[in-house]
């Protein structure tokens, strides 16, 4: 097969799988708790700066993962406790509150690191011959990790006790509470999981992006589109959203221009909001 088409096909797969991971944290928090975390992109940014720090200290790259999980976890926990808990079931208020949080986190990053670009060296540099075409190794690894992460989460959510408790909390919080499930703790845990997933996405994407305080804005928008198209509350929805948004963008960008790709994504998001506001996989 034509190596150009093969490469573009892998590009589509790469776009879809990384988008799914970057939207995962937002999907967990929005889908399960009904909180639209506008600061999602800033947690991605924090993850990326963790990767930068680890690399500038010359530690192994994988150490960035626990560091990002710890920092995003602690911030997420504090934010849930102070800011989000009093605002559950008030979607607009949480939106404004997390918007403020995003400004604050961005300014803190600016205060610590300045506005300049930081570059994170790719931990697995170089290209490899894959299906008859040269493709960057790190991007291939990223595709594999992303797919594994999403699949792992689907299985865990569907089969574990915590997963079924969360499902109980989502469908009927009062009844879940009456059953002896600590809804408050469970909600806090879910929020922290969402921010940690964002941080994880940041560590993964850091070597491929300009690391700077504003970088989160790029990701929150696309992640939000994924949720609009995919619908809330199911991992299948998340993945189909990522497939439609990332896939459409990537295919059209490859076939014509990036401008057309971006335009298509915007039109698609508007059409979905208009004609199918609950997304492809509507949550009952």
């Amino acid at each position, binding site marked *: 097969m034509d*190596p*150009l088409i093969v*490469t*573009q096909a892998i*590009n589509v797969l*790469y*776009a879809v799988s990384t988008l799914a991971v970057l939207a995962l944290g937002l999907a967990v928090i929005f889908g399960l708790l009904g909180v639209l975390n506008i600061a999602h992109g800033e947690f991605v940014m924090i993850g990326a700066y963790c990767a930068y720090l680890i690399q500038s200290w010359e530690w192994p790259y994988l150490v960035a993962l626990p560091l990002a999980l710890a920092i995003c976890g602690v911030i997420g926990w504090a934010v849930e406790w102070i800011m989000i808990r009093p605002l559950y079931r008030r979607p607009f208020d949480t939106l404004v509150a997390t918007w403020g949080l995003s400004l604050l986190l961005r300014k803190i990053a600016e205060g610590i690191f*300045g*506005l*300049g*670009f*930081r*570059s*994170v*060296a*790719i931990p697995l*540099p*170089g*290209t490899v011959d894959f299906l008859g075409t*040269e*493709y*960057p190794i*790190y*991007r291939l690894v990223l595709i594999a990790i992303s797919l594994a992460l999403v699949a792992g989460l689907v299985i865990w959510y569907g089969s574990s006790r915590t997963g079924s408790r969360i499902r109980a909390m989502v469908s009927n919080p009062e009844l879940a509470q009456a059953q002896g499930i600590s809804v408050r703790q469970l909600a806090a845990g879910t929020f922290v999981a969402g921010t940690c997933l964002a941080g994880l996405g940041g560590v993964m994407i850091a070597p*491929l*992006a*300009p*690391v*700077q305080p*504003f*970088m989160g*804005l*790029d*990701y929150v*928008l*696309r992640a939000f589109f994924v949720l609009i198209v995919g619908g809330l509350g199911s991992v299948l929805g998340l993945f189909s959203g990522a497939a439609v948004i990332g896939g459409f963008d*990537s295919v059209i*960008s*490859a076939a014509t*221009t*990036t*401008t057309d*790709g*971006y335009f298509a994504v915007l039109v698609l998001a508007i059409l979905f909001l208009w004609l199918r506001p609950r997304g492809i996989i509507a949550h009952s």
Partner: protein
Amino acid sequence: MAFDKHGTTRRALLATAATGAAFVAFPRMICPAAAANSEFKIGLFIALSGPASLFGPTQKACAELATEEINKNGGILGRQIKLIPTDAGGPPVESTKSAIRLMLEENVDMFVGSHDSATREALVATIKGKVPYIYTPTYEGGECAFNTYVIADTPEQQIHPSLTWMMKERGAKSVYLIGDDYVWPRKCNEHAHKYIAENGGKVVAEEYVPFGAPNKFEEIVTRIKSAKPEMVLITLVGADNVNFNRTFAGFGLDKEILRLSLLLEENTLLGIGSESSNNLYSSMSYYANAPGEANKKFKAAYFAKFGAKAPQLGLIGADCYGGIYCAQALATKAGGTDASKCMAASEGLSFATAAGTVTMHGRHVDKTEYLAICKGTEFDIIKTFENVKSGDECKA
């Protein structure tokens, strides 16, 4: 006042309105007394917010350095300069509002601007030549508005010699053009088409990405790979420039295809990083490590004033230093800020910049240009083009 807890009385409102009307109707009563021997106010348009705000600290610092030096030597026409740094990092319409405020409320004597071309066009249309306006970074050429002075690099200076050199000395005859979708890249590429044809080369493809959108470049890089050009001419800016170059090198294209970027300065190169800067060239009239006595003196003064933690020096920022000196030279030679006198004085006007003294012809300046190759995250200047004509001299 209008929102205090007692509410606004009709009388208070009337009184306020009357006072306001008095100020508007009789500005002459207040201004002349204040204007005599007062400060020389310069409205400085720089990026204090938005994606370009990473240049803001350098722009402000360089303008402050020039101001301090001039004020120590008696200021402009005996008046001390007062800088009014104003944000031009947002949408152009916000900058035009600030320009109106600066003209009406602050009575600024001059404007100096270091920002993108979309904002420049909006500012020119707003200021309408009422106050002299000096534009400083690199640009696409062709600005001949009344009472507007350009010390920026023009395509004839920045693109023509460097592109010709790359095509002749590096043998890169087929060129792929990629840029952000706004006025500067599109106009630059119009010029590039001309220069490429002149050197017997050809444009393989020309492509733009939406400006300010979260762009990714895997698809474009794949397309470049299959188009097999010998060189890519890049007019992407900021994060897009970083992103593109990292993706380009990530796909291994840096080994075979040369890249010449037209807005690649120290900050952007730090973002691109050393493992992605192989075979990457940049062309500009200033680099922090550019040779020459003037830059040495400028840097010594800069680091003496701001210390080791001074903002990263680069063309965007250092241009403001020259901008303030241009304002001083212009007002001094014209004996004030009268538009027609300034227009006349600008011809043959000489003034200091970070890179050395330059002379203005046709409200543009002739200047020395450099072509640098990236060595890690440093620029290595491999070719100097002395005193290149702007090619953009305005007739009237």
